[in-house]
């Protein structure tokens, strides 16, 4: 007989279930990883305290992630996401560059509360027309 316990274990152990653990991180964290010339993973994690602030509405539910050319400092692209989205993949505007990102959290009144900074990734140049 299937039990609720088993179903719950399965969900917790799924990839999505594992991502939920990022709502109880030891630190707030923002990171970039590249899987190819057209795909960069951005992910973020929150401490339980910070996640509770979001849940209670002390912070805006939307966060702002800005990606920069890490060498020139120019802004490359920007994304608005739900605070508990925890990850997404994006296509970088240009290949062969180093990118870094910043994540901004806003208070309920719209003021910037804090920023997280990511590592720097190199996006492969890839072949022309690939």
């Amino acid at each position, binding site marked *: 007989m299937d039990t609720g316990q088993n179903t719950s274990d*399965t969900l*917790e*152990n*799924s*990839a*999505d*279930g*594992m*991502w939920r*653990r*990022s709502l109880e*991180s*030891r*630190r707030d*964290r923002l*990171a*970039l*990883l*590249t*899987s*190819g*010339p057209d*795909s960069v*993973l951005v*992910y973020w*994690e929150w401490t339980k305290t910070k996640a509770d602030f979001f849940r209670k509405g002390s912070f805006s539910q939307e966060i702002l992630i800005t990606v920069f050319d890490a060498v020139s400092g120019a802004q490359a692209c920007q994304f608005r996401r739900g605070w508990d989205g925890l*990850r997404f*993949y994006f296509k970088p505007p240009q290949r*062969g560059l180093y990118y870094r990102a910043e994540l901004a959290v806003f208070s309920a009144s719209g003021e910037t509360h804090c920023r997280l900074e990511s*590592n720097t*990734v*190199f*996006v*492969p*140049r*890839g*072949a022309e027309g690939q």
Partner: protein
Amino acid sequence: MSAKGLLSFVICAHKPFARQGENGDCAGEEGFFSAVANTYAPLVDMAERLSRDNIRPAFTVSLSPSLCAMLEDEQLGGRLRSYIEAGLGDESAAFAHLRYESALAVLDRYSGDLVTPLKQLQQNGQIEVITSTATHAVLPLFIHPECSRAQVSVAGADYQERFSRKTRGLWLAGGAFEPRLSQYMQLAGINYVFLPARSFECARPKPKYGLYAPARLAGGALAFACDAASLEDCLSFSGSGGGVYLDCASFGAYDAQAASRVARAHAEYFLRRRLEQAEAADRASGIRPVITCACDADLFGGKWFEGLEFLEHVIRFIRQERLPLQMVCAGEAVEAAQAAVSGEIEPDAASLSGGGYFEQWLSPDNDWIYPRLNAAAEKMVELANRFQFQDVGHIEKRALNQAARELMLAQSSDWAMQGGGASGCGGGRVLEHCGNFDRLAAMVCARNIDEAALRDMETRDNIFFNMDFRVFASASAF
């Protein structure tokens, strides 16, 4: 006849560390046993046979430190013997009996330790042995540079301890490279690495001598481009054979003599193609090309039952038919190519995996492992920085060293490839090692070490005997 080209076979041998205690309950062990029986022991046998016939095998084999640790493990050795003996008793696998008997003979000759004959073959100048990243981690997916340095440094130290000399070459797991890794090669005293052809094709600037000569990286190490055509040929042979090769999936009727004839024909075809390549490269750039054929060791004997026979035919034909090709170890290719080394290039990020980049290790199916790995890495660097100059007690030092081992085991690229959630074998191993790491880190920070728990982890995950946690420090010198 002087050689028109140099053929450098690089055979990449790796298995993830799978040693789950007395009861042998980890599926990874079986993969290791099968690889020893079908590939590693027969490879040693083949190299020794060629050597006895005064034919120098002259290939390069990359042995990952985790594989070496398993090859030398006495507990695993006992279970390996049982595995092979069971295979010999299996009537449905009669085609493999000869191979298993010869594998047992090789193991008996060296008291179950396959590292020793490889070391001897290297000392006698027959082959070259190099290392790979410590736990076969894919370095471009690290966000902490300390981890990349540690993987290279620990691998180098492990090799030196085992082979009583420094490794000259390094195999990057999956051939995965990104430009910032160049600097770590020199720091660890690595002379050369092997990169995907794509890294050369999209390099800045373009390498002067193209794909068939080594190019210099920032920091001074050399890089060889892995030849896509020769690998494609091997992969294509392994999956063809006109129905004569052993179908490892079905184990139908098998005519060993007919399969042997096809392997021989494939070897002849392979060498014809390499000669054509060498002549074309000579015409295009006026150099004596180095054709680097890098293959996963599992291809020879495991995925392709006749693969080792093919390789032996290749090596024998060059000598017997006096072909204008020369088999060379990678280190010899460096010496031979000194006159035609392309100046410093910045190769592109790429890998040798199917997609050409890092999708195999980073996708929506397995990306959940990276927050776990990166959090542990961040903590390890923090602990190494904090304790590197402190006079820590013996037991705290043991806990810190074991934490470093657990982190490195968690970083193995194999786990991401096995995919799935936490219930899968690969995901489970990430959680297990990260869990061990967290526990050890908490003990160290609380200055309260549970020695029994520590001893248990040291016994089970007994890799890198001389691990020094300070290798993860931000300013570590190695």
